[in-house]
């Protein structure tokens, strides 16, 4: 037999919606058929009566009274429900922590929330990136486009319009920039200083900037221009704007330019601009032949050399090349390079070529062939290339991409040497060294030599020295840079042949 109980609170007002929420909770309690808390107006009493919730006390209530009505299976359930309702009514309100902030959904709202902003970072599917970038530049924002798969015609049009508007377009396919000390996308925590970087390569910028930092120098800004900026079709628009920007920047004394070799006409234009500059330039065109440099510029061939030329005024090699050259295990003559950084894999290939070691690659520099399969020995693989990142995260973010390939490679009986890069900093995985160590731990007995480098700084969340220590404890030979690691690998292979 259902039991109806009422409780009346005189002179108690609560908004109807708040009362409805409490009603819903109470109606859901064990043994409760229906419940409502309403102010005792005639209309509300009608509603409660129709719902079978009104007893004599409720009928007698007036408009200023709060009526609690419960219909339940039995007395116990009904009274328990009323008691619970009382608790809910008088419960202290948990203070919402200054309310959740509205996250802007449009550029317009974001700008009105933050009128001082002068840079937008765009990471949307390539089909839409140009449109979003156009909105940003038209609002006077410098724009970094992380997205790739943007048509080259769109890049051209965007950069021309940006040039007219006086804003920089960094990208598309720009993975790294550091502006005013702020790391953007994949970038490292660097000391501030008077060295500027202009780079058409993300990991190239990362390697050079981290080495500058380690050598005691500091970075003013690192401008990513995107992989195609120095191509014939784009003609170096952003690069030229960056050179001009550094020209006007009193904080910048020296500039490092990093790129794969541009077309002849673009190179000529850039070098002309550099020649007219008052700043000192270090030019690193990865894989380029030696060129005539103006008086204020030096050409270097590796990323490490770019850093040491700029910081020390000369190229240095670390001493560790002659002693501790590892010896390949008996009967294992082959090698593999497994890289996350495209430019680092290119640099490695060039160093192997120079050293007379035959190499193939899925992202070949001129003169290098493609392997039959990415599991082929004698290849240097860029695991961040498109064929690996379709529908999968980049190996810098998700080390499992490399783990599968590395685990297989380690089991190849002819494999004597593996060359890797380890890139840390913002955007990268929390603990890339751990991934390598895990793979190595699955091996018993004889195994290939593993040589690598760690691109990063002490200021990075992962802490470079801590990553190096982990790797060395697992038997990895950690060189001081990607170039050093590649040279060490070459020497090792030369000596064993």
């Amino acid at each position, binding site marked *: 037999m259902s039991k109806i109980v009422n409780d009346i609170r005189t002179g108690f007002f609560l*908004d109807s*919606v708040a009362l*409805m929420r409490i009603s819903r909770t109470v109606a859901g309690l064990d043994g409760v058929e229906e419940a*409502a808390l309403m102010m005792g107006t005639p209309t509300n009493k009608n509603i*409660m009566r129709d719902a079978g919730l009104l007893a004599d006390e409720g009928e007698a209530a007036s408009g200023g009274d709060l009526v609690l009505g419960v219909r339940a299976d039995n007395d116990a359930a009904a009274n328990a429900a009323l008691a619970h309702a009382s608790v809910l009514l008088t419960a202290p309100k948990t203070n*919402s922590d200054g309310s959740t902030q509205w996250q802007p959904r449009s550029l*317009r*709202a974001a700008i009105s929330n933050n009128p001082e902003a002068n840079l937008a970072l765009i990471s949307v599917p390539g089909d839409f990136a140009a449109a979003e970038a156009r909105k940003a530049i038209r609002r006077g924002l410098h724009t970094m486009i992380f997205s790739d798969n943007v048509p080259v015609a769109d890049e051209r049009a965007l950069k021309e319009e940006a040039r007219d508007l006086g804003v920089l377009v960094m990208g598309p396919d720009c993975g790294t920039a550091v502006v005013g000390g702020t790391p953007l996308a994949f970038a490292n925590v660097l000391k501030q200083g008077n060295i500027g970087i202009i780079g058409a390569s993300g990991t190239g910028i990362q390697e050079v900037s981290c080495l500058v930092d380690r050598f005691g120098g500091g970075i003013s800004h690192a401008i990513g221009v995107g992989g195609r900026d120095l191509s014939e079709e784009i003609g170096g628009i952003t690069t030229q704007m960056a050179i001009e920007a550094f020209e006007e920047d009193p904080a910048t004394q020296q500039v490092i330019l990093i790129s794969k070799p541009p077309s002849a006409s673009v190179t000529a234009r850039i070098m002309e601009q550099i020649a007219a500059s008052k700043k000192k330039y270090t030019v690193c065109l990865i894989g380029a032949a030696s060129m005539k440099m103006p008086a204020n510029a030096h050409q270097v061939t590796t990323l490490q050399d770019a850093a040491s030329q700029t910081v020390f005024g000369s190229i240095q090699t670390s001493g560790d090349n002659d002693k501790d050259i590892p010896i390949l295990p008996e009967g294992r003559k082959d090698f593999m390079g497994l890289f996350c950084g495209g430019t680092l894999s290119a640099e490695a290939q060039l160093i192997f070529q120079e050293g007379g070691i035959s190499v193939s690659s899925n992202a070949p520099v001129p003169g290098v062939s493609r392997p039959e399969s990415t599991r082929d020995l004698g290849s240097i693989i860029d695991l961040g290339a498109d064929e690996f990142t379709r529908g999968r995260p980049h190996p810098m973010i998700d080390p499992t991409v490399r783990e599968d390939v590395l685990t297989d490679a380690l089991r190849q009986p002819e494999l004597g040497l593996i060359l890797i890069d380890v890139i840390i900093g913002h955007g990268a995985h929390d603990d890339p060294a751990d991934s390598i160590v895990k793979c190595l731990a699955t091996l018993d007995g004889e195994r290939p030599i593993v040589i690598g480098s760690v691109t990063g700084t002490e200021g990075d969340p992962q802490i470079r020295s801590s990553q190096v220590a982990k790797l060395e404890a697992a038997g990895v030979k950690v060189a001081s840079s990607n170039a050093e690691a590649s040279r060490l690998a070459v020497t090792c292979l030369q000596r064993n042949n």
Partner: protein
Amino acid sequence: MEKIEHANELALERMLGGDPILVDVVPASNAIPELAQNMILHAGPPIEWERMCGPMRGAITGIAVFEGWARDLEDAEKLAANGTFEFHPNHHFDAVGPMTGMTTLSQPMMVVENRAFGNRAYCAINEGLGKVMRFGGNDAEVLNRLRWLRDEFGPALGKALRHIGGLPLKDLTARGLTMGDEMHQRNVGCSSLLMRALAPAFAETSTDAATLPRALAFLGGNDQFFLNIAMAMGKAIMDPVRDIEGSSVVTAMSRNGTDFGIRVSGTGDEWYTAPVEMPEGLYFPGFTDDDANPDMGDSTIVETIGLGGFAMAAAPAVAGFVGAGAASDAALTTHAMAEITITENPEWTIPALDYKGVPTGIDIRRVVETGLVPTINTGIAHKKPGIGQVGAGVVKAPMACFEAALRGLADRLNVS
């Protein structure tokens, strides 16, 4: 792009330049000369009997009996089914109506005049809460009330309004916003202010000692009385914004319980429709969301002018209908609506947001771009006719309407 921007500038100028005054109450036959026997105006975009929801059918049969076009509800249903009645949207005749929104010859219509542009808009008088025709109620009690509104209250209200020369509505609305109203779910502030403004006039123009107390009791007893006035105000403000070539501003949003329709300035009288969504809310005791009718009414004209769900930050309690229900969530809704509107209304501001103006001028481009649709505060009817309101909550406008409208506007502007 520039053409659209200029067109929208003009649209906003007209919207914000409106001067709505509640001037009179007149029979619908006077207000809308096109009305005739067997002609019924309803809420929402055009719809046929076969696709009408329960409450809409309930209201139609009820109003047919009220007007004497049918003997009883059963007879009315037969006549409706055999095509005797002509159905049209209120919007096509300068009118709006909440929920089922019935407008017929003898209904007393409140008149709002937009003195800046000279146009007028009409809405019937709010019947009160509970079993009423706007929720599909159609029994004797409902019809008797309609008779009383037609014969006694309507004319009395009209006299009082004429006596004071009309009641300006913009300032009254601004005051209501500072009192916790958002003019869709919450109207008690404005309804009270209206009563204060009109009570002396009612008293002065009353010729019958019995009428006055009944009129004042009715006015004073209905927290939602102002809703219908806010709706007519919305229509009066938006009508001059129609037909601006190239404008992407929404001039009307409306539902008939089956379809949700929007109209856009640059596409004229075209309705862009999609199925209505179900409200999410809280229910009176004895009811659950199984009992709910889909979204219905012309009252979304209120959101169209930046009130209702758009001004939710002024009425934090209403946020309690959805999810965790923190009052602070109300501000988030207003911020979200700011993403899809062109500007803020400097005359209608929300104290809790440091006097930020209500988000005004829904831009269909922004709706599609951000993926944010207008948020609407609404009452929930029982899906069966004649039962009445079962709850209240929040509902979203369907994105499909805005996508279709954007394509329509692009066609008009010859943009692919």
